[in-house]
């Protein structure tokens, strides 16, 4: 309940510099003013936050113990050489982390950054993610409570040789608790980096992860951001990624969501320089009574930028998927080239999708399109496969996999792409070789 | 027919035509050749009055009139036709309607009576054969969904219907297979008369096997680097453009 958070805040002994304390106070005051949104808020029209708003979450308890390396490796196989920070129940686990695998990139916990990079934080932290919009109160709550998280700074001109893995885990002690992880990614001009942000569970139930990631992508730099939401099936997950792009920068995002009972994932990018590109792709695979809501927003504020968006959903049982993709084109943003697609496959007659691809355009010399399709497995393709002797069930599973694989193929990290494809294949066909 | 004298034109601050002088007489076919970026297409566009180019100096006298002083549609009505390198699509507007509107505008400008839809169909039917196009394409939207070859043939159809005095063909051969190229060239050859003229802009010599030019001009860096008879085209085919570019470099 809202009052629980307000009360928790009065007991909070916030870490970090004085300027941040002031922002925390503004954020909690904003939350106090507007409270949790309802479905009357246009941005929450298809997702009621009531299950979160009406529950009470205590600050998440410390983990009972730390997982071993083989448990971690199983979460994302083949990543032994990656830079890695691990957080368990919202707390940095230095013994599981490998922060300095390579030069040219600073990777540290938020607490360490308070000490070591005060000016970097002052310049970027809380500057990208909006806390004023009543639809974004979860960001305000995170801002008020953020305790730990990750800070990544890629030095100018540096290409990181390996991806950076930020792993947020929960264990049994997480039950009934809330964590507010905060991530800051800074790609200095001319740099190139890949960050994989993974939310997964080793135990715990009915907990809430309320995450916020802010990213700044400098002139001519490229940032790949891959986000995996694999929370416990009865958990809640709200995650916002807010990105600021400078001239000629590229931001490529992939959101993969299979976990949580109720999840809401916001991915926002502002194109503030000429010649930027933003690519937002995603795949959500839901079953049971899972509800997953993706909200994307691309703001074209400068000319000559492009954006590409492909989101796919595979919905089984009585699951409910939501996609709301907004593309804004400011009057200055001439020659904008925007394309957005949302395709949903409904596997069950009880599954439901609400999709709202939205264009708001104020410049005349632009090329913007969006498309959405909803349907079930293509009967022609199904018949074709069956006529070649593939049994009905297997044919359906293969076609489902093929639908998902089209968007998974856009993931640039081979190991990750292969891993997720394997995961999808297993989920849809019960086998790992097809 | 047309007398071009020291024509200079630029886009923004960049000068592209750096002093072109050229005379084309009635009954003649001139070929404009040159490497990519030499200004060939710019010359075609400037003669048609494309608003994206600024003429900075020089003059163009067409049939005794100052062409540069005329609006694009006035040039068209006076008989200057440009076959576009990239024909533009106009969704929802039928080819027949578009062509008839253009035809009647040209007729009006000449003080001739306008054709009604039925009369016009007769005129077009005859011209369709010339470019080997099916009558069904008249009902399709202008260039929308046309293949590359269809678009180019559609340009020649318009040329045949509008019957201009000066036709400028801007890389009409690009993207055509050999059969389509022959069709296009045959069309042009049949339209050739003593009282009209053609300016054929092309990168490759192969079109000139079918449309035989009276004169060939090679454009390099916005200037005519060399002019000659049809044999110059063959020489270019054999030796490429580099030798002319090199000569030009030495001379500059």
């Amino acid at each position, binding site marked *: 309940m809202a009052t629980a958070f307000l009360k928790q805040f009065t007991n909070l002994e916030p870490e970090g510099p004085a300027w941040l304390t002031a922002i925390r106070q503004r954020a909690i005051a904003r939350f106090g003013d507007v409270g949790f949104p309802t479905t009357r808020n246009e941005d929450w029209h298809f997702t009621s936050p009531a299950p979160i708003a009406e529950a009470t979450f205590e600050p998440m308890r410390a983990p009972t113990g730390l997982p071993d390396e083989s448990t971690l490796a199983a979460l994302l196989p083949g990543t032994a050489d990656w830079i890695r920070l691990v957080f368990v129940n919202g707390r940095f686990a230095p013994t599981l982390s490998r922060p300095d695998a390579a030069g040219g990139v600073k990777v540290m916990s938020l607490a360490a950054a308070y000490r070591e990079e005060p000016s970097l934080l002052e310049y970027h932290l809380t500057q990208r993610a909006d806390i004023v919009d009543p639809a974004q109160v979860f960001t305000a709550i995170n801002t008020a409570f953020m305790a730990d998280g990750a800070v990544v700074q890629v030095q100018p001109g540096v290409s990181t040789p390996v991806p950076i893995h930020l792993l947020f885990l929960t264990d049994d002690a997480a039950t009934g608790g809330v964590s507010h992880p905060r991530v800051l990614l800074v790609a200095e001009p001319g740099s190139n980096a890949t960050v994989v942000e993974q939310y997964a569970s080793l135990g715990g139930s009915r907990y809430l992860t309320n995450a916020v990631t802010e990213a700044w992508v400098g002139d001519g730099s490229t940032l790949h951001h891959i986000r995996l939401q694999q929370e416990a099936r009865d958990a809640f997950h709200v995650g916002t990624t807010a990105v600021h792009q400078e001239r000629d920068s590229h931001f490529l995002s992939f959101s993969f969501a299979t976990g949580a009972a109720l999840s809401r994932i916001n991915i926002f990018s502002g194109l503030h320089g000429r010649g930027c590109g933003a690519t937002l792709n995603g795949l959500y695979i839901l079953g049971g009574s899972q509800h997953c809501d993706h909200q994307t927003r691309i703001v074209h504020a400068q000319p000559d930028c492009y954006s590409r968006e492909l989101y796919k959903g595979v919905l089984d049982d009585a699951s409910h998927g939501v996609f709301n993709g907004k593309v804004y084109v400011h009057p200055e943003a001439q020659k904008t080239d925007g394309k957005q697609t949302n395709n949903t496959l409904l596997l069950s*007659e009880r599954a439901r999708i609400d999709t*709202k691809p939205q264009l708001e355009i104020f410049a005349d010399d632009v090329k913007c399109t969006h498309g*959405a399709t909803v349907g079930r497995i293509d009967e022609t393709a199904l018949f074709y496969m069956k006529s070649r002797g593939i049994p009905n069930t297997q044919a359906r599973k293969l076609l489902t996999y093929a639908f998902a694989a089209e968007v998974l193929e856009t993931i640039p990290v081979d190991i990750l792409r292969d891993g997720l494809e394997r995961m999808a294949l297993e989920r849809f066909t019960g086998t790992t070789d097809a | 027919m047309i007398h071009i004298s020291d024509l200079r034109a630029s886009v923004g601050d960049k000068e592209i035509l750096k002093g072109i002088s050229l005379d084309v007489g009635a009954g003649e076919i001139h070929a404009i050749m040159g490497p990519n970026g030499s200004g060939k297409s710019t010359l075609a566009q400037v003669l048609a009055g494309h608003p994206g180019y600024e003429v900075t100096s020089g003059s163009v006298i067409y049939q005794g009139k100052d062409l540069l002083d005329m609006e694009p549609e006035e040039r068209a*009505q006076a008989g200057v036709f440009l076959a576009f390198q990239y024909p533009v699509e106009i969704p929802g*507007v039928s080819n027949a309607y578009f062509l008839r*509107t253009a035809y009647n505008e040209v007729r009006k400008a000449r003080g001739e009576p306008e054709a009604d839809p039925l009369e016009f169909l007769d005129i077009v039917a005859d011209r369709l054969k010339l470019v080997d196009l099916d009558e069904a394409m008249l009902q399709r939207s202008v260039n929308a969904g046309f293949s590359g070859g269809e678009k180019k043939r559609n340009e020649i159809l318009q040329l045949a219907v509008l019957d201009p005095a000066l036709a400028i063909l801007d890389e009409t051969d690009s993207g055509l297979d050999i059969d389509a190229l022959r069709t296009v060239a045959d069309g042009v050859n049949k339209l050739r008369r003593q009282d009209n003229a053609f300016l054929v802009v092309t990168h490759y010599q192969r079109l000139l096997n079918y449309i035989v030019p009276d004169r060939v001009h090679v454009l390099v860096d916005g200037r005519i680097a060399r002019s000659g008879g049809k044999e110059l085209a063959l020489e270019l085919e054999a030796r490429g453009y580099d030798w002319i570019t090199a000569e030009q470099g030495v001379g500059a």
Partner: protein
Amino acid sequence: MSSEIELLVNKDYQYGFSTDIEADQLPPGLDEGVVRAISARKNEPEWMLDWRLKAFRRWQQMTEPHWSNVKYPKIDYQAISYYSAPRSAKPLASLDELDPKIRETYDKLGIPLQEQKLLAGVAVDAVFDSVSVGTTYKAELKKHGVIFCSFAEAVREYPELVRRYLGSVVPYSDNFFAALNSAVFSDGSFVYVPKGVRCPMELSTYFRINAADTGQFERTLIVADEGAYVSYLEGCTAPKRSTNQLHAAVVELVALDRATVKYSTVQNWYAGDEHGVGGIYNFVTKRGKAFAGSRISWTQVETGSAITWKYPSVILQGDNSTGEFYSVAVVNNHQQADTGTKMIHIGRNTKSNIVSKGISAGQGNNSYRGQVKVMPKAEGARNYTQCDSMLIGNRCGAHTFPYVEVQNNTAIVEHEASTSKIGEDQIFYCKQRGLSGEQAVSMIVSGFCREVFKELPMEFALEAQQLLGITLEGSVG
């Protein structure tokens, strides 16, 4: 280029004159007494008054919606007069008795009300401010059993039909403006086409707002009985006035089993001047209910009004029913339009098709807002939506808000949208073929709207052509 486009889109509003005529007008303000007074003036039966009063009480509890993408100053509902009728308006034995001033008004609007002058095959109901002043071709229609009359007449003459269908598609509680209309609606048109009858001519209502400071609240109810067919056209104009006037209409369509209703609108209310002063607030609720195997088709060309807020919708109740929506919406100067449709798929194998073309010029803002909802039982539902916007100039906006909500996995729903501008290259291409800039723009815009124009009946296609200043001849197939 801009000067050519300006010429085209800034054509003066031709219908901006007003008629000086003595009117029976209620003083501004709205309370139960006003609702009773309207009902009394129309000699309505008790049930009609009761329905109005229920609506009024409901309206009092409602708040004006503000979710649409339009901005306007607060409307003072107590400053509006809710009834205005020409003094001379009384039931006419024949149209020859019509007040010459009113006839002259319709002549000037190009809607002659003498039957011998009429366009063959179009019957017209002329609504002047709050009342219907005459309906043509009634006798001819009667021969086929088709009822076409003013709403007030229908309440008197066909109470059982009106009672059965009034509010059956748009209940008085539906939304703020529908409730207001239900309380104070003054007149409008009523159509009933009996079983198996194909209405022999186009039916048309021409709405004219004349009086100042009044609202217009007409109500249209069209019922096509089983297997019937009707095509209905609606046109609207108003004088130029510097104040905003409220138009809150309700249209209900009922297509019973296997019936077809085609409803076309050319909406050209006064849009306000180039500074955004004056113009009509067009807040309209239009909805049809389609029973088994029936088809409801909305076609609209929206060029007028300062603000347009309307979503002609179809409830696809019956199995195998079809809903269609074809729309061209043009905004210029300071006009705002938030328009689109709702297709609610309830029955099995229901189909809907949506084609929306938005053109924004000047400082206009055009929003497409459409909902496609497939309910759990709508097996085999199919929707295709195409939604294109064209921007002319750099101070206008085009917005697309589609809501796609699917709860049945046998449904196939496709939505496509694009935004483009008139290309300089297209204009140059046309000019190089000898066309003037204005011709070029006309041709390109008409091509853009072609899929919608071809849905309009011929007479309206011509009017739409004049409205957009577009030469359509031959370009619309």
